[in-house]
């Protein structure tokens, strides 16, 4: 276990400069190999560049099962506030130091990795946003659990999280649609609905359009998860009737 650290603002900016310069001089894959061997650690992660978070730890991932990793990460760091969990200084440290081996395996990094993909997999942009949070290799694990955990279900709080992480397509379909992912009740209702359906991506896409149209005419602020489930059922009936799927 490693203590949770954040990279100081100035050091982070210097780190981005260093990465950019390095990627202009060598292939991204070469750079990643050096990074994984810890060759840059003394330069990038010295104590003076870091701020340590008391009592929080980044756990070791023992497998590359995304749900298990996400659950472990969330349980060790659930005391992070939502603001802290959108901090680029935190997720860049997690990606470039603590979980670089995990990212290598999870993203199946190979020699052909481009500069753009390197940035997408290994860094969290300088400014936080919903898109960055949903895309970053590590922050998406934390937020995936945070938006789908059912704290009212003591016996099985990860019921919906398991569905979310069960398939990378479902994960992408839900987390990259801000309309759904920003609303926890809607996220759970969608997950519950698509759990046993075929053509999950097509259904999610179509239902998102229906929801988008619905919110133009109806205020959904006070909808419960059950309201959303009923609504999605109605939309699905209409989708079937119209032969859209």
């Amino acid at each position, binding site marked *: 276990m490693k203590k949770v650290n954040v990279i100081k*603002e100035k050091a982070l900016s210097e780190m981005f400069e260093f990465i950019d310069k390095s990627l202009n001089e060598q292939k991204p894959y070469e750079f990643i190999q050096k990074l994984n061997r810890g060759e840059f650690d003394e330069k990038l992660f010295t104590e003076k560049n870091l701020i340590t978070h008391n009592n929080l730890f980044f756990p070791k991932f023992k497998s590359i099962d995304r749900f298990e990793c996400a659950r472990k990460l969330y349980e060790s760091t659930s005391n992070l506030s939502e603001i802290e969990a*959108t901090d680029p200084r935190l997720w860049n440290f997690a990606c470039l130091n603590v979980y670089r081996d995990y990212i290598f395996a999870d993203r199946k990094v190979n020699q052909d990795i481009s500069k753009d993909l390197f940035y997408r997999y290994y860094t969290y942009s300088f400014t936080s946003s919903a898109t960055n949070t949903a895309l970053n290799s590590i922050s998406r694990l934390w937020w995936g659990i945070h938006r789908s955990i059912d704290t009212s279900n003591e016996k099985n709080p990860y019921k919906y999280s398991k569905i979310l992480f069960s398939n990378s397509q479902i994960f992408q379909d839900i987390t990259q649609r801000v309309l759904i992912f*920003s609303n926890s009740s809607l996220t759970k209702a969608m997950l519950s609905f698509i759990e046993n359906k075929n053509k999950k991506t097509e259904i999610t896409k179509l239902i998102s359009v229906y929801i988008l149209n619905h919110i133009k*005419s*109806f205020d959904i602020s*006070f909808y419960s998860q059950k309201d959303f489930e009923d609504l999605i059922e109605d939309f699905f009936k209409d989708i079937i009737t119209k032969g859209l799927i």
Partner: protein
Amino acid sequence: MSHPIIGNPNEVNGDFFLKFHNPKIEIQEGKSFYIIKPDQDSFEIENTYFKKLFNENKIILTWRIYSSKTFYQNSSTNFKEIRFNTKRISGSFEVSFCLCANKDFVFDPPKETVNSFFEGKTNINKGCILSKETKFTINPSIVNRGGISSILEFRYKKELDNEYSVRYSDPSGRIVVYIKDRTFFNVLNSLTTKKHTKKIAINSFFCSIIVEAIRLLSNDDEEYEWSDDLKAVIEFNDENKESYSDFNNALNVYNEMFGEDGFLKNSILEINKLIE
């Protein structure tokens, strides 16, 4: 048939208006909370039929806040406040409001209250939106005791060489003023949370620090994480960037942008009220 939307002059005669109180920050048991509340006195519905529907509780005001960074959202109806921990939102956040149906009812407007195209009966379902949606952004307050959404915060620190130390480049991303004296820290803490003394306290202690921060905005060599929030508060004009480095100008910006009708004068008037 579809129903008309108030706020669209082609569909409904007369508009509706609402303002919100300035957001307040309250400290309770060491935690800080934002309090957002619509100003009931500012609420007005010009259209007589919509006004009647509101008075009969068939339509209500619904409003919500949303932070796109942390996905935090919260909703309320009519004039009930929303209170939430400042740790849930970073930087600016969005507030939106509209009028919507509180129950199922038949919409049957008298002649000339709406465009004749919409005359006649229409079934309205609960939750149906009957007005344009208004959205605006709330920017963070300038001084806070420790809430993440602030530009400036102050902290007690025993191990200081001098009485005070100001850090414009603190890892927290805010301007941090360290105070050596515990008693002074406690008093300042208390004064900045009370409505009647907040302005005076800010002005007495933070004026020079904020003016210096305004001056730093003109400097291209250094970038500060708090600069975007401060720029939003003072409505920074990029075209006249250099002018902010001038002390007189920075002082006047501070005076104009941190309180209505002149922050400096009003702070003095408030001291006067306290001793009267």
